[in-house]
């Protein structure tokens, strides 16, 4: 059972690495933003499987923090990528 957990965690990690290819290839900026969300979902899965495999229950809390960090980083990317002129227009009443 433990071997299955570790093998699946490795498999999902390889999927994550393949997804990072999108950061290198992605023609537009938003393709690169996708990776933050990918890390959020995939990272949570890997951490939860590892938490079950090793018995370290603190990894579940780490998975929770990963999910939150994922949203925060996407918000930061989206806000940071809009042109300063757009932000000016948003600030006007």
């Amino acid at each position, binding site marked *: *059972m433990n071997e*299955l*957990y570790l093998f*699946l965690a490795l*498999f*999902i990690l390889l*999927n994550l690495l*393949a*997804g990072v*290819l*999108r950061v290198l290839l*992605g023609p*537009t*900026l*938003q*393709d690169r*933003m*996708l990776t*933050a*969300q*990918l890390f*959020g*979902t*995939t990272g*949570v*899965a890997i951490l*939860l*499987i590892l938490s*079950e495999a090793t018995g370290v*229950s603190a990894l*579940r809390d780490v*998975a*929770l923090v990963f*999910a*939150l960090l*994922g*949203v925060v980083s*996407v*918000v930061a990317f*989206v806000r940071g*990528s*809009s042109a300063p002129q*757009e932000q000016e227009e948003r600030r006007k009443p």
Partner: protein
Amino acid sequence: MSVLDWLTAVLLVAGAFFFLAGTVGLLRFPDVYNRLHALTKADNLGLGLTILGLMLQADSWSVVVKLLLIWLLVLLAGASSAQLIAGSARRTGIRPWERR
């Protein structure tokens, strides 16, 4: 291995398969809106199946509730992130892919 262990193994393998499907979609789909579909739907489904399998192995009810809350939070996070990224793509003027 008991019935519970077999069930967990089946659910975990199914979840990993959906992660693979999401990654293939991420790499192969033609534009950013399609890639958002693959990422949000397939990966979250894979995560849901994985968490379901892990819930069966939990030692106590508090672990089950914690796993359920993590799943709900990731669902919310994924939906909000997809909305934000798609909005940013729309504002930048990226047009959806059409079959030529």
